[in-house]
């Protein structure tokens, strides 16, 4: 969609009594809405197409993990993802009967061990690379993880 056209449309909604305006061009849909106190808000909704989202893609039939829920949460800029650097099995604690390395709400610093990813019988300690507060643990204990799979959300100050 042409940016000049878009600017014209936004101005048009701003200056008129229209409160909501939707237009679709090809696979791109734009909704411009306004409430009396604020400037018009613009939402883009690109249609899903075969090439971009793989409809049949399943991660690990056993764990039923869904990845899309995590990516939408990243829109907040002070939330940092800790991702797995390797393929393996995620464990919250160093041994089955030991305490978890961390809990939600813990403050961590760069270098704090957060979890273990076990690969080929080797226990790999995964460290935080920033300082902050653990706000979410994204993977369940003893489930498989793949390369770059998000494991934790750390809120930086």
């Amino acid at each position, binding site marked *: 969609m042409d940016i000049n056209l878009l600017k014209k449309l936004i101005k048009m909604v701003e200056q008129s009594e229209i409160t909501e305006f939707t237009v679709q061009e090809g696979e791109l849909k734009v909704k411009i809405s306004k409430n009396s106190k604020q400037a018009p808000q613009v939402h883009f909704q690109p249609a899903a*197409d*075969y*090439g*971009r989202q*793989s*409809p*049949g*893609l*399943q*991660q*690990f*039939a056993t764990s039923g993990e869904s990845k899309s829920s995590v990516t939408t949460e990243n829109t907040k800029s002070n939330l940092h993802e800790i991702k797995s650097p*390797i*393929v*393996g*099995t995620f464990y919250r604690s160093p041994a089955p009967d030991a305490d978890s390395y961390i809990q939600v709400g813990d403050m961590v610093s760069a270098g704090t061990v957060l979890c273990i990813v076990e*690969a*080929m019988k080797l226990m790999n300690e995964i460290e935080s690379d920033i300082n902050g507060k653990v706000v979410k643990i994204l993977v369940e204990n003893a489930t*498989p993880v*793949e*390369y*770059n*799979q998000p494991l934790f959300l750390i809120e930086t100050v």
Partner: protein
Amino acid sequence: MFKKILIANRGEIALRILRTCKELGIPTVAVYSEVDRDSLHVVFADEAVCIGPAPSNQSYLKIPSILSAAQITGADAIHPGYGFLAENAEFSEICAESNIKFIGPSPDSIRKMGDKAFAKETMKKVGVPVVPGSAGVVNDVDEAKKIAAEIGYPVMLKASAGGGGKGMRIVWEESEIEKAFQTAGNEAGAAFSNAALYLEKYVENPRHIEIQVLCDQHGNFFHYGERDCSIQRRHQKLIEESPSPFITNAVRAKMGEAALIGVRSVNYEGAGTIEFLVDKHQNFYFIEMNTRIQVEHPVTEMVRNLDLIKNQILVAAGLEIEDKPLEPRGHAIEFRINAEDPDHNFRPSPGRIEYLHFPGGFGVRIDSHIYNDYVIPPNYDSLIAKIIIWGTDRAHAIRRAKRALEEFKIEGVKTTIPFHIKVLNNEKFINGDFDTSFIDKHINIK
């Protein structure tokens, strides 16, 4: 039979393997790098694991990542395809140690046949013809003269420690050998710090003809005839066909026999290909063995009516080969479609496929992972499709190939389709009159 197969590869061969696994009812695991997330075989597999970033050495070649993916998904077998880890003896060994079946030969077979000098010696010992030459390094020019006189000119002096064409000289007659010995030795010394040379018969304008074999653990050693892969550019195969338009039936039979003698002598298991050079007098010489499935395997499948991947899986599972060799039927030709620009020195042309139309009809087989809107990543080889044509005879296969390639539309990237059409219209190609120098001599490209 295996309960789950992990496909340790990508692109068209990963899809090829997946298709056979589905037909056999075996669940599949795809492993992929970050740029292959939207690859077709990843979409179709029962499970998929991202194993690393785009660079091959951090993903498709990273043994721990692949083994780990097999462990977390419970895969009990790995098919390595071709390239990547397919002929990596260490990988084959680690799989065995981890109780995962590597669908291919033993680490020992891979090591033995992967060592070119050893493979040649092994074949020679059992009476398979090899390129005649010195048994090791030639110590001085007099020794070189003696051996050359025995095997007959032209000969080639080659650097023992080398490659890439350095320290190599073709010698056409005895009067040239002294100077050639000196200059080749100096060049080798400068390039590899080792001036040692060995001598081999120079096979002029050879044809590259290979034999497909399948061997199981039940004493079956079969060959499925030849593929003529002489149409090459810079030692990369572009077109392969079967039967070869050049060799006679007598030579064909002898080559098949030689291939079987070779694989029996090393007690080979699985699919493999024995490669020969054939000179203009129909003499054939063993050059090397590939201990894996090859890119051009569909050519044999079309003419001999079997699924080679299926038989690989059966053999690996300890079962007997299901498809005994049949008499060849008709003629098959494969054209490798690469995302390359033939008008600009075949430079790679990655990018988004904006419009795609596959040809169809009787006798047209497409092995390809591409689809409309697919983005070809720049990190891997440029093969985007194989089109394999079957015809009742060679002339028919050529007519059908022309028809099919003219229907084949790929827009958004440059491809070698126009190049293949040029070859199909070349008189020498049509007459079956070609060797490995064909592209250089007859097709007007660099």
